[in-house]
């Protein structure tokens, strides 16, 4: 379990993270979403003790990361930024990490096998592709068989097969009772593996909810496409009922603020003929973008007055 309590991080005048509070529970995959620059990586670095919070505390299994006696057994992490010496072989890189915890060499070979890097284990990391580097990062994260897995943008550089592989892996890890926390700036990447969702924008918490709830609310606000015999009268009636209406090039109306059922009943009551009544599906991507966009718009610029 990861607990973040009132964490802020300022670099000089710049606010990276502001008063963040959330809990990441074991047993489910939790997605950590936000646009680029929202503070996801900073938050992860704060949890992992690489950066020191200006205020607040971040703990894993009830302790701050730096106080864990055997951190690799408790937390396996892969950061977005490269974190591997390019002159060393993949195997020696993992070996040096394993030795800090007295983890046996055969576990190194196991994780290499697990991520499919056995055949290049003795090659220098500098010759690796982005995807291979990503797999090596995942191998390092799994080395200590940790209770908690933290991955920053794990799908970066992976091919579709690799993305499928990591999705299955993460779901399995969560099913085993582990805490799985992964960040992404793409909703589509998260929705297929995550059950829980933490969304941040400009360093502040926007949502802490289940993916199902987020989807439900997003669809409730979805616009409806309406075509009728008399668009002007229809638009007038809908606007009067409190909806926002816009006229499309083909003469259809895009209505937001009213559900399709309400629009149909309203039209019937006013005796207006409808030719089409289509609830438009908002993709999660759009819902997420609009939520983070709002959050950004209504926040102060981040510079303390």
């Amino acid at each position, binding site marked *: 379990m990861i607990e973040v309590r009132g964490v802020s991080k300022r670099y000089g005048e710049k606010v990276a993270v502001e008063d963040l509070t959330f809990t990441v529970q074991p047993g489910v995959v939790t997605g950590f979403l936000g646009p680029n620059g929202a503070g996801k990586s900073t938050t992860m670095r704060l949890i992992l003790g690489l950066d020191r919070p200006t205020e607040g505390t971040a703990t894993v299994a009830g302790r701050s990361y730096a106080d864990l006696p055997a951190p690799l057994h408790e937390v396996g992490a892969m950061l977005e930024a490269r974190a591997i010496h390019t002159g060393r072989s993949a195997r020696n890189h993992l070996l040096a*990490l394993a030795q800090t915890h007295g983890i046996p060499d055969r576990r190194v070979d196991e994780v290499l096998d697990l991520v499919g890097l056995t055949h290049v284990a003795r090659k220098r990391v500098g010759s690796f592709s982005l995807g291979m580097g990503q797999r090596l990062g995942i191998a390092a994260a799994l080395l200590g068989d940790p209770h908690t897995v933290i991955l920053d943008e794990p799908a970066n550089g992976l091919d579709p097969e690799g993305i499928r592989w990591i999705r299955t892996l993460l779901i399995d890890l969560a099913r085993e009772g582990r805490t799985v926390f992964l960040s992404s700036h793409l909703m589509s990447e998260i929705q297929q593996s995550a059950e829980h969702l933490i969304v941040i924008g400009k360093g502040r918490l926007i949502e802490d909810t289940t993916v199902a709830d987020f989807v439900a609310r997003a669809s409730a606000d979805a616009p409806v496409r309406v075509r009728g015999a008399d668009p002007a009268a229809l638009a007038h009636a809908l606007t009067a009922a409190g909806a926002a209406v816009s006229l499309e090039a083909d003469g259809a109306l895009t209505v937001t603020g009213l559900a399709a059922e309400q629009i149909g009943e309203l039209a019937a009551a006013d005796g207006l003929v409808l030719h089409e009544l289509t609830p438009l599906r908002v993709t999660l991507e759009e819902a997420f973008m609009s939520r983070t966009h709002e959050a950004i718009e209504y926040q102060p610029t981040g510079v303390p007055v």
Partner: protein
Amino acid sequence: MSALPTAPGAGRLTGSAGATDGIPAASPVTLGRVLRSEWTKLWSLRSTRWSLAVAFLTQAGLGPLFALLEMGRWNQLSLGQRLFFSPIDHSLVGFHFSQLAIGVLGVLIITGEYSTGQIRSTLLAVPRRLPVLWAKLIVFSVVAFLLIFTGALIAFFVSNAIFTEHHVNVGLGAPHAFRAVLGTALYVTGTGMLCTAFGTMLRATAGGISTFVVILFVLPPILLLLPTGTADAINPYLPSVAGGSVGSALLSPHSFSPWGGFALFCGYVIAAILTAAWLLKRRDA
């Protein structure tokens, strides 16, 4: 059992968390284990092995090479040069080069981690941070000392065998001989540790190496531009002068005793290491 079709070794992960056989659930990080890890890191880089090889070969080989040249032109040397010829110092000239190689490597063992991002992996495994610095310093200084000491002994014996040609050779029992051989290894090792401290403070290879070169190679000649009295007063306190005298058989009237100077040099090294440790612990990585 395995739910990962593309991963043949995946069965390993499907045990209960943290309780897989062979990996003790809480096997803590200890200084001994970090030492082992740093040992692996030191030897698993090609650049490290090259630097160590260069340091050893120059320390062992340059003395004898110069010995051959000196003996070849012995009859052309002035009487003064022959009278003050120091078979000890001539055999150990290689330290000028081995010191450079060890100094650069001392910077690289830490800045190489910063430039590649490896430091993040390192600190995730050892989040208390300071054991990393101690382990790096211990592993590196032991390896550097053993290599340079062995190289200096080889240089001493081979050079003095060459010096027998004109009967100016000495043995290891001669006054200052053993102290100079041991002192050379100690001074070069101390230089390496000083450089690791610089590298940790500056977190950049170029900055670390520049600092090292300025302090050890640029300050001494710059000092000569000052008025003689001032230069003589400051000179003994320069790290290269204070530390270097322990590796030389010649005693300068203007400097500290060999071991006294070396003690001052050690003081500089310790001060630099403590500053580096404080910064490493305190700063964001």
